[in-house]
């Protein structure tokens, strides 16, 4: 085991896979010489050379389009879109082209690519550089979507994403880059489509993703200590494929479900999970399912405003306390 930061784990996961397979190549803005604007690709140019780690112009459509062309002709490209907000600049490539190519060609095309990006709020970058858009990606058939919360999961899920024969959108959370965690030594490969139960409780189940996971854990701690409410915490980790069985099992155990979502209110990833639980576990619910989300607004820039908008530990605790009876 070694302690790595979340950002170090990104580079470590990519390096592990690039070392293993010559077909793995990288492209993106400022990823090579600069090691990435968030320092997530530090050392990769030095280790793997300019043929395999390429800086691009500011051309999101070309970055993602080239990744698609390379993937369909035998390479395994990892393309970076610097801020997930910029997906809006190249959604055609992701949603119309990559997501659909295999289906439209009846399986003739294979697209084993990874698009990785920095997602989420907390950096005071304002509305166009702070969004969480994993729910947009989730809504498009043909894309796999992961959003790890810990350094270990970053490395393991990155490896899994690179090895996955289908397109994977890999959402790193910029608010978590500096966090630290134990990462297994040696080759570490996780599995897409698996959620993790981080804390077992008996009264309510909190289901969270990415930066909301540590907040859910802190909230669970306070709920237990201050209110004698025992909370299970599930880290979803992978939106597509979705580990529905784990989530259903944990919600059934307590009968009460809360989602903690950074997306703005409408159509956040939790809405789909709530729908599944309401349909498949209705007769096990001991109370209404509650979603704890950012309100349906663009994110403000000022630190106090941004912090207020995204679900806080206090808001999670308060919501559960008010409604868990």
């Amino acid at each position, binding site marked *: 085991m070694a302690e790595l930061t979340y950002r170090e784990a990104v580079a470590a996961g990519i390096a592990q896979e690039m070392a293993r397979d010559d077909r793995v190549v990288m492209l993106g803005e400022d990823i090579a010489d600069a090691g990435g604007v968030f320092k997530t690709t530090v050392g990769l140019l030095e280790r793997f050379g300019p043929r395999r780690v390429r800086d691009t112009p500011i051309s999101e459509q070309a970055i993602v389009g080239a990744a698609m062309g390379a993937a369909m002709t035998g390479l395994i490209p990892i393309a970076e879109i610097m801020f997930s907000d910029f997906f809006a600049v190249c959604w055609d490539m992701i949603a119309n082209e990559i997501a659909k190519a295999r289906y439209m060609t009846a399986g003739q095309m294979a697209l084993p690519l990874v698009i990785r990006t920095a997602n989420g709020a907390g950096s005071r970058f304002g509305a166009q550089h702070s969004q969480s858009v994993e729910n947009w990606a989730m809504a498009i058939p043909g894309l796999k979507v992961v959003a790890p919360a810990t350094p270990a999961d970053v490395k393991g899920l990155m490896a899994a994403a690179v090895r996955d024969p289908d397109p994977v959108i890999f959402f790193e959370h910029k608010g978590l880059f500096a966090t630290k965690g134990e990462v297994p030594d040696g080759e570490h490969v996780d599995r897409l489509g698996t959620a993790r139960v981080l804390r077992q409780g008996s009264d309510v189940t909190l289901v969270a993703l990415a930066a909301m996971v540590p907040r859910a854990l802190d909230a669970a701690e306070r709920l237990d200590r201050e209110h004698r409410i025992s909370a299970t915490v599930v880290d979803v980790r992978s939106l597509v494929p979705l580990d529905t069985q784990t989530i259903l099992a944990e919600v059934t155990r307590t009968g009460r479900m809360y989602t903690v979502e950074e997306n703005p209110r409408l159509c956040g990833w939790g809405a789909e999970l709530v729908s599944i639980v309401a349909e498949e576990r209705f007769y*096990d*619910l*001991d109370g209404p399912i509650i979603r704890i989300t950012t309100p349906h607004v663009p994110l403000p820039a000022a630190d106090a405003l941004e912090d207020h908008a995204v679900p806080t530990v206090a808001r999670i605790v308060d919501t559960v306390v008010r409604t868990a*009876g």
Partner: protein
Amino acid sequence: MDVVMPQLGETVREGTISAWRKQVGDPVGPDEPLFEVETDKVTVDVPAPAAGVLVEILVPVGERVEVGTRLAVIRVPGEAMFAMRGPGARVVTLSSARPTVPAMPVAIAEASPALDPPRTTGRITMPAIPTAIARAVGAELRLSPVVKRLIAEHHIDDPSVIPGTGAEGRITRDDVLAYVESRGAASGGGEPPAESLVPMSRIRQLTAEHMVRSLATSPHVLQAVEVDFHAVERLRGAAGEAFRAREGFSLSYLPFVARAVCQAIPEFPHVNASVRGDALVVHHRVHLGIAVDLDRQGLVVPVVKGAAGKTVRALAVEIHRLADRARRGQLAPDDLTEGTYTISNSGPFGTLITAPIIHQPQVAILSTDGVRKRPVVIERPAADGSAGGETSAGGETSAGGETSAGGETIDAIEIRPVGVLAQCFDHRAFDGAYSAAFLRRVREILEQANFEAELT
């Protein structure tokens, strides 16, 4: 009108004003909180007793005062500025002072576990009380999907027997599971059990507590009269079918008894009163409580408001309406409050006599029991010299042995519908003679009055 410190629990003697919700000059009403009281047991928001304007606050926040202390003054429309008591109540002073018993809704509020403080705040709020009342009268419980499923799976016929520990007394999943486990623990294995545990429903529990308290409060005396319902029966026979066709239900004895009671009360007003401290509060209006059995699952007493002015027909219609709503669990809390006298009708079961328990804070309750054909001795005038065996064709009779002018009377046996009316009264309020005279009057009315005009 005075606002006084209410009694929020039977043994609660004092309370502290923890907040005034209104300022002097604000309009107040019975549908919003006026002040908040803290006692040892509960913290409650209390509304104004009537709609009006708050004119004076007499007790500040934080002060601890005894029950009954004047806390504030409200000006009620139509009331003189400095009235000392509530409008229209005439006070009769008694020598003995007894603690007052809280009215039924408040008793429910105190007794119901639904008002145990929720986990975090320890506060009981006003909205919880209607919920508790609603639950007490069998209104629909809010059951979550898993609770409904478990109830069905475990064949729990009456979910209200399950103690609820969730918010506002909600039955949670764990509550059902705990109940099932305790139920299962009660039955042993092997031989058929010698006994089984039937948990009391909420209504049962509340009724039990109220009955015990009522007996402990009022010294009960039972008095009864036999009533010849001949006249009533004749009227029922004549007008009953038309009545049923018009109103959609049958005309029973009960509205006649209710009418007779209402007509007798003005002559004996103390039977329509409440004991308060060492005074008797005589109520000027008659709000007649009619005990309704809910399919032998419990008892509720909806109130016919303003019964004194109602004809037999109006009473019949209102009693029917309330009984119907009671059985469908649709009584509102207002339907259950402010009763001043109660009639309990066991008649349909053919009982001989019942000693009912007074519905606090009233001072009397009347039971009507079975009306059956019995042979009775009728004194008839001997005008035509015939003796015995003749029945007079529906003529007026008197049970008192009056003779017709100038003649002797002959004892004859006739078959008459006879029923017992039994009143239990609170011996603090009046004595046996008063009660007996009242009962005599009721009987007279039933046997002699012609209610034909009151059926349309």
